[in-house]
């Protein structure tokens, strides 16, 4: 059990690192692009641009959460 916990912790540290918001932002951005692709309304060029913009927006939101003023 201890080994499994340490193993899981290693992979969490390796992939997610110290800011889970980045991983969530990337997954959400890719999901948005995937949904757009599933509708079949967009061609490859539009899909790639949407994906790129979604990643940038996700990253910007995670940064904004990082630097927001803390409530006291």
């Amino acid at each position, binding site marked *: 059990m201890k080994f499994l916990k340490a193993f899981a912790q290693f992979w969490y540290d*390796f*992939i997610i*690192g110290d800011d889970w918001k980045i991983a969530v932002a*990337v997954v959400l951005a890719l999901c948005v692009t995937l949904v757009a692709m599933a509708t079949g309304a967009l061609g490859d*060029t539009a*899909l790639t641009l949407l*994906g*790129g913009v979604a*990643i940038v927006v996700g990253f910007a939101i995670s940064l904004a959460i990082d630097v927001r003023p803390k409530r006291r």
Partner: protein
Amino acid sequence: MDAATWGLIIATFVACFVEMVEATTIVMAMGYTRSWRSALAGTFAALGALAVVTVAAGYALANWLPESALQLAIGGLLLIFGLQWLRKAILRSSGRKAIHDEDAIYREEVAAAKAAGETKTGLDLFAFMVSFKGVFLEGMEVVFIVLTFGLNAGNIPGAAMGAIAAVVIVLGVAIALRRPLSMINENLLKYGVGLLLASFGTYWAVEGLGIFRAGRESIDWPGHDLMILVLLVAWLVLSRIFVAVLRTPASAATAPEVAVEVKK
């Protein structure tokens, strides 16, 4: 050698260089304060484990996954790594996060080594384990970057060449100087690597979403590989905008007085 191969070698060289500096700092701290024999034993054990992981992961990635699935998996992970590095670089440049300092990390490792107490057996387990963990963790990122960049470019030897050159240079400088490599502007290097990983990661992750459509064919970016350069410029410009917007008044006035960061 063509421009793409040079780009591949430079990308893996810079990424590996940063990770090697961090691993070397940890091993030097253990070697000078505890036992060189145990620190080097931990280092070689980690290198052996890394070699096994590299062969296994390389074979699995190259043979078991369709191209678009490979692009999605490694692109997604590169994107997460790259944006983590970019986030730290932006927060550091804007004065909202402490600067990474190898001297401070070295001092912390030395203090931990001294506090751990003497060992009675032949092998100093503390020095062995700290060195093993440091080299293995930093090395895993290098292995991942070399494999992914190499597989996608269809040039594993080129990617490995960049990584090996970084290992040789960092070890050579460390042996010559016999102290932590704090004179290297690691924050700037990390910023550069973050930009590279974010650009390649964005390109491959979006391309790889094609695994979910009929035929499992990758989504095509306009301009194909040339778009990676456009993405690189876009991430650079965006990161500078983020730095300008987030810059604190204190950091603009007293930039050199920013505190140092001990942890990665």
